[in-house]
C-alpha cells in the first residue's frame, strides 16, 4: 500500500518537474513549482525526515514560490527573452542531462551496504546537549559552525539584494504591496497573524525535542509579517533603521558571543558547558528565529525603493 503511494508520489514529482520545465507560460510554471514543493514535503515525510519536510514546505516551496511569483509579476512583459537554444542543441543537452541522471542513479544503487551512518554517534552526543531532537543537536552543537556561517550567508544575500537599490533610495523603504489589495488578502492579514505567531513560537519551542526549530519558526513569522505588509496594514521598515539592523545581526552576534565564551568556560570555540548547554542553545535559537524571520521577510521584500528619511 505504502509502496503504491510512494510510486504515485514519485510519478507526481517527476510529472510536475517536467511540466515546470516545458510549460510556455511563466506564471503557470511557477504555480506548478509551488505544487511540486508541497509534494516534495510529502516525500520528506516518507523519508522519515519531518524537520526537513517542514523546512521544505515553508522555505523551499512557499518562500521560494512567493519570491518567484513576485519576480514574474515584476518582469512580465518587460523581460527581453534570451538567446534560445536550437533544437539539436536542446537534444544534445537532454542527452547529457539524462546521462548525468543515469550515472547518479547507478551511484545511488551502488551505495555501500550496510549503509554507513552517524546516527549512533549523534545519539551518543545527545546527552551532552540536553536536547531530544537529534537534528537540532547536529545544527546547533555538532556542526554549529555550518549553521553560524549559513546565517551569515543569508545576511550576505540580504546585503547583496539591498545593494541593488538606486543610490538615493539605499537604506530606505522597500516596496512590498503592489497595486490594489484583494479583499480576501486584507481579511487574512487581520485574522491570520495572531495564530501564525503562536504557531511560530510553538515550532521554535518544541524544536529542541521534537520536529521544528529556528528556520521553520522563522519562516512562519516571516510569512505573517509579509502578509501584514502585503495587505498594507503596516509599511515595511527602513532597511537602514536601527531596530531592523539589530534584529538581523542580533541572532548571529549572540551565537558568536556564546561561541567565544566557549574558549573560557568550555572545551573551546562553539563548545557549551555541559550544565548550561540546553538553555544556551535555546537562547541562541530564540535570537536566531527573530533574525531568520526578519532576514527572510526582507529578502522577499527586495531592495529599497523610497529614500530614507534622514
Amino acid at each position, binding site marked *: 500500500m505504502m509502496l503504491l503511494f510512494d510510486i504515485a508520489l514519485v510519478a507526481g514529482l517527476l510529472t510536475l518537474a517536467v511540466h515546470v520545465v516545458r510549460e510556455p507560460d511563466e506564471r503557470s510554471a511557477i504555480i506548478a513549482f509551488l505544487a511540486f514543493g508541497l509534494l516534495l514535503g510529502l516525500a520528506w515525510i516518507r523519508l522519515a525526515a519531518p524537520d526537513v519536510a517542514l523546512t521544505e514546505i515553508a522555505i523551499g516551496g512557499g518562500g521560494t514560490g512567493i519570491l518567484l511569483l513576485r519576480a514574474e509579476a515584476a518582469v512580465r512583459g518587460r523581460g527581453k527573452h534570451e538567446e534560445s537554444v536550437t533544437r539539436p542543441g536542446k537534444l544534445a543537452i537532454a542527452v547529457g542531462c539524462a546521462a548525468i541522471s543515469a550515472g547518479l542513479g547507478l551511484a*545511488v544503487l551502488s*551505495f555501500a551496504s550496510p549503509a554507513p551512518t*552517524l546516527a549512533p554517534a549523534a545519539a551518543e552526543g545527545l546527552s551532552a546537549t540536553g536536547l531530544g531532537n537529534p537534528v537540532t543537536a547536529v545544527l546547533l552543537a555538532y556542526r554549529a559552525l555550518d549553521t553560524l556561517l549559513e546565517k551569515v550567508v543569508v545576511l550576505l544575500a540580504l546585503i547583496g539584494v539591498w545593494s541593488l537599490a538606486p543610490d538615493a533610495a*539605499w537604506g530606505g523603504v522597500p516596496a512590498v504591496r503592489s497595486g490594489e489589495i484583494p479583499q480576501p488578502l486584507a481579511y487574512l492579514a487581520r485574522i491570520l497573524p495572531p495564530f501564525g505567531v503562536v504557531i511560530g513560537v510553538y515550532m521554535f519551542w518544541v524544536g529542541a525535542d521534537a520536529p521544528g526549530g529556528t528556520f521553520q519558526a522563522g519562516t512562519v513569522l516571516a510569512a505573517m509579517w509579509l502578509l501584514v505588509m502585503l495587505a498594507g496594514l503596516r509599511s515595511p521598515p527602513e532597511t*537602514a533603521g536601527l531596530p531592523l539592523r539589530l534584529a538581523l545581526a542580533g541572532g548571529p552576534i549572540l551565537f558568536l558571543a556564546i*561561541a567565544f565564551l566557549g574558549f573560557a568556560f*568550555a572545551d573551546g570555540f562553539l563548545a557549551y558547558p555541559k550544565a548550561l548547554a540546553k538553555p544556551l542553545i535555546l537562547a541562541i535559537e530564540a535570537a536566531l528565529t527573530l533574525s531568520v524571520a526578519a532576514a527572510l521577510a526582507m529578502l522577499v521584500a527586495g531592495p529599497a525603493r523610497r529614500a530614507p528619511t534622514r
Partner: protein
Amino acid sequence: MTAALHATTPGGFLLVLAVILPVCAVLAILACGPRSAARIAMATLAAGLAVAVAITVELVWSGAALTYVVGAWRPPLGIALRADGLSGAMLVMTALVVVAVGLFARVQYGLREGGGSERERTTFWQMLLALWSALNIVFVGEDLFNLYVALELLTFAAVPLVCLDGRAETANAALRYLLFALIGSLLYLLGVGLIYGQYGTLDLLALARLSRPDPALSVALALMIVGLLAKAALFPLHLWLPPAHAGAPAQASAVLSALVIKAPIFLILRLVLDVAPGQVAFLAGQLLAVLGAASILFCSVMALRQARLKLMIAYSTVAQIGYLFIVFPLAAGGAGTSPWETIAWTGGALQLISHALAKSAMFLAAGIVIKVYGHDRIADLGGFGRALPISATAFGLAGLSLMGVPPSGGFVAKCLLLTAAVIEGYPWLAVTILLGGLLAGGYVFRIIDKALAVSASPLPSRAGVPRRLELTALALAIAAVLLGFVPLRPFGFLQIGRSGLAMAGL
C-alpha cells in the same frame, strides 16, 4: 579509527580567528551602520593580517600542521579545521592582497570626488570582509560540507561586488556569474551527498584513508570537479568571467581575479591529490591538463585581441589559471616521491601566489588609469606612462610575472613547471608553457608600448589621484617580483603537514 586523525594543536585557535574575525566585522558593520564601516574594516584588516602571520610563524616553528576541532566534537560527527604549509601560504597571500586592496579602497573612497556612494562603500567593505572569511575557510576547512558553505559564502560576497556600480550591464554580468556559481556549488553539493552515502564521513583526512575506486566515489568526484571548474572559469567554462571581472570597480576586480577563483582551484587540488584513488587521480589529472593547456593558448590569444584594458586583464586571468591545471600530471610524482616533494608542486603553488599578487596589482593600476582617462580603450591610452609613471611601472612589473620573465615569481613558477614537463616526458605541455609565455609577452607589451608612446592629444590631468593610491598597486607588483628570489627547488614550507597525509593516504 578516526579518533587519532584530528586533535587540537597549540595555536589551533588561530585558525578559528582567521575564519571568524572577518565575519564578526561584517556583523559589526551591519549593527553599527555605514558610518563606522571603514574604521571597523581597517581594524579587521590589521588583525586578520596579524593572525595569518601568526599561523605561518607557528607552522614554521612547530614544523607540523595546525588543527582545531570545533566545539570539541571530533569528526566525523563534528568539524575540524587544519592548516598545513600550503594552507599557510594561501592564508598569507590572501591577507596581503586583501590588506593592499583594502588600503587602496580606503584612499579611493576617501577622495572628495568620485569617492563612490555610501551604498557602494558600505557594501564593498562588508563583501570584502565576508569574502576573506570564506577564502580562509576554504584554505583551512577539512569538512566537505563546511567547504560547501564556504563556497556559497564566497559566491554571495563576490556577486554583489561585480555589480557594485549599479549599472544594468554589470547586473547582467553578475546574474550570469551567480547562475554559473550556483550550478557549480550544487554539483559540488551533490558529490558531497554521494560521498557521505558511501563512506559516512565528510572529513578530508578520513576520506584520504578510506577512499577506494568505486562507482559512487568516481561519480561524486566527477560532479564535484566539474562544478568547481565552472566556478574557477577554466576553458570552456570561462565565458562568465571576462564581463564580470572587467565590469566591477578596480578594487573589486582585483580580489575577484586574484583570490576568488583560487578557492575552487584549491579544492580541486585537494580532491585530486588527497581524496581521489590513484587511477581516478591519474585520469582526472590528464583531462585537467588538456583543459589547462587549451585555456592558456585560447585565452591568451583572446587577451591579445581585446580592445579594452580591463577585458584584456580578465582574459589573461583565465589563461594564467590554465598553468595551475597542468600541474596535476607533472606533480603526480613517481615511485617513492609524493606529489608535494616535486618541483611541479612548488611551481604550481608559486604560480598561484605570484598570479594573485601580479593580477591584483594590474587591476588596481588599470583602475587608476580609468580614473584619470575616464575610459579603458587601449587604443586611446597613448602616453599614459608619462601621466601615471607609478601605475605604468606597477603594470610592467606585474607583467613580468605573467610573462615569466626574471626576476619574478612567475618566472620561477614557469621555469619549475617547464623543467618538470621536460623531465616527466610531457613535451606538449612544455611547448604550451613556452607559447603561453610568448603570448603573454604580446599582450603585456601592447600595453607597455602604449604607455611609452608619445600621445597625440594632451595628457589628462592627474589631479585628484593621490600618489598613495598608485603606491598600493606598485607594492603588490614588487611583492610579485620579490617572489622571484625563492630558490629553484622543492620548497620545504609547502611540505609541512603533508608527510603525515602521505603515509595515511598513499
